């Protein structure tokens, strides 16, 4: 624990905040407290600069031209792939596919891998806390292939029992698709035993890392997951781009997802031969500037240090939970410990929408709604909830402002 406190002390959040120009915005004349980072994170200046630099000096189409700019653009795009591979511990750069985001990454695996390998009676195992983007693609492919969806529940108190997941993995399980970090419960799912057990029965594992990569030190080789999906915009990069990591042995056997330019080697009207990995899965002109921005964002994260960021966020989340549970009528969704960056809660007698409006007028941005996890809201018997989520630039003062505004809001609505 001494390491933890040393890191917290050394963490200069004010200096980090200087790197994020948008934090100077004053909503309704109040200082911004941006606590909706699970929805999307803000961008450091170096990311904005990298993208502007790319468009100002390097832009052309990639993998096509023989001219100077095309070479520059291709080099910048492929360099970004190297940064991503290194950031998440992929052993081979061709295992990194650029997509539009987590949603497209999961759809790619569901449609391509699922469409090719799922058979009637096969089971797709999910958890009750999956985001809609890790539910609906599997429903679509289940309808097409006759495979069945099975859902691992959580405990009444909102905690997750690994044993229940292990029990649900059977000889019929073909794929386990689960969140690495829940976007509502905030729990860091203990994925290691699940992956190990899934592999023992011959199932593959996809991790939805949308809420994980900005907060944990993700190493896909160490995890030994077969697929890993995440979005750039939730890890300080631009919108419009995301990543699918897949083990080459799977990607090579999977059919293309989209057809078009760049993903082919030779096209005739009779027959097309496909390009090698990763290009087989990158049809059309990719988001080049966005890839450059993402690469810069990941370098920025590592320049601050992932362990230091995680320790800081853990400290903020603990402080947030400590303040929230003291407020009468507040119900925390999920356990108090073992969380990353996300704190969702409901308040007796006050609707999340009213809370979010109330806090917004104080300059405090939080999320209200079902968080694209309606099955989980149904499990808790609530239509929606409020969510505070922190990032590397969040401060204790922001958490305190949110707690103070929440107390005031409850007083107004309950009088």
């Amino acid at each position, binding site marked *: 624990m001494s390491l933890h406190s040393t890191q917290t002390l050394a963490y200069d959040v004010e200096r980090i905040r200087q790197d994020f120009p948008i934090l100077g915005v004053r909503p*309704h004349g109040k200082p911004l407290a941006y606590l909706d980072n699970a929805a999307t994170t803000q961008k450091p200046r170096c990311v904005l600069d990298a993208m502007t630099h790319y468009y100002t000096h390097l832009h052309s189409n990639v993998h096509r031209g023989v001219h100077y700019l095309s070479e520059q653009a291709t080099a910048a795009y492929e360099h970004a792939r190297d940064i991503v591979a290194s950031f998440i511990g992929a052993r081979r750069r061709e295992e990194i596919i650029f997509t539009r985001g987590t949603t497209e990454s999961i759809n790619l695996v569901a449609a391509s891998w699922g469409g090719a390998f799922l058979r009637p009676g096969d089971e797709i195992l999910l958890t009750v806390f999956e985001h809609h983007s890790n539910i609906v693609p599997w429903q679509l492919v289940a309808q097409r292939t006759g495979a069945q969806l099975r859902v691992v529940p959580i405990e009444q108190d909102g905690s997750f029992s690994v044993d229940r997941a292990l029990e649900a993995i059977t000889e019929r399980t073909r794929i386990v698709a689960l969140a690495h970090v829940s976007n509502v419960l905030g729990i860091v799912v203990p994925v290691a035993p699940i992956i190990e057990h899934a592999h023992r029965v011959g199932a593959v594992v996809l991790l939805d890392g949308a809420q994980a990569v900005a907060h944990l030190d993700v190493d896909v080789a160490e995890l030994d997951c077969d697929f890993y999906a995440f979005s750039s915009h939730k890890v300080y990069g631009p919108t419009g781009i995301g990543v699918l990591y897949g083990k080459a042995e799977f990607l090579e056997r999977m059919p293309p997802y989209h057809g078009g330019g760049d993903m082919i080697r030779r096209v005739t009207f009779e027959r097309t031969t496909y390009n090698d990995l990763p290009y087989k899965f990158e049809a059309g002109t990719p988001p080049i500037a966005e890839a450059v921005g993402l690469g810069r964002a990941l370098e920025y994260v590592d320049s601050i240090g992932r362990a230091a960021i995680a320790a800081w966020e853990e400290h903020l989340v603990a402080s947030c939970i400590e303040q929230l549970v003291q407020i009468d009528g507040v119900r925390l969704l999920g356990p108090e410990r073992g969380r990353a960056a996300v704190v969702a809660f409901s308040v007796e007698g*006050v*609707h*999340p*929408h*009213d809370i979010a*409006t*109330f806090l917004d*007028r*104080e300059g405090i941005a939080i999320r*209200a*709604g*079902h968080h694209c996890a*309606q099955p989980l*809201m149904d499990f808790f018997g609530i*239509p*929606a909830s409020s969510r505070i989520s922190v990032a590397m630039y969040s401060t204790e003062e922001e958490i305190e402002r949110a707690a*103070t*505004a929440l107390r*005031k809001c409850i007083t*107004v*609505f*309950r*009088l």
Partner: protein
Amino acid sequence: MELSDELRQLYQEVILDHHRAPRNYGNLEPHTHQAEGYNPLCGDQIELFLRVNDAGIIEDVRFTGQGCAISRASASLMTEALKGKSLAEAHALFERFHRAVTTEPTAPVDADSLGKLVVLLGVREFPTRIKCATLPWHTLEQALAGGGTTTTE
């Protein structure tokens, strides 16, 4: 922490009162008209029941459901305003209300034509919340048109 003027306008005492103690809350049996309204964005959900007599007059109206203070107060105030009105008058009131809440915040409104519903005009300062106020009213239109489910997003 003081409330801003806009928040005060949005959450007037009348609205908070109807939110805490909604009028005409519950099922209505028998009823002649029924519809469900749903706002998938925030999960607000309302079920509306009306009993209309042979002369086309709304004899009774009730609602159930869960929602934010605005949608709940709007539903409660709506049920009060509808009782004793003809179907034509109810539809005309929907149109007046809908027009009023979707105007610019500073646009003048004929307050007399809205009665107690004027307290809901504070939502004009909150574009994301206008749908909360109009959900019960769209549900009313759905019920009068023959029922079913209506959604606002």
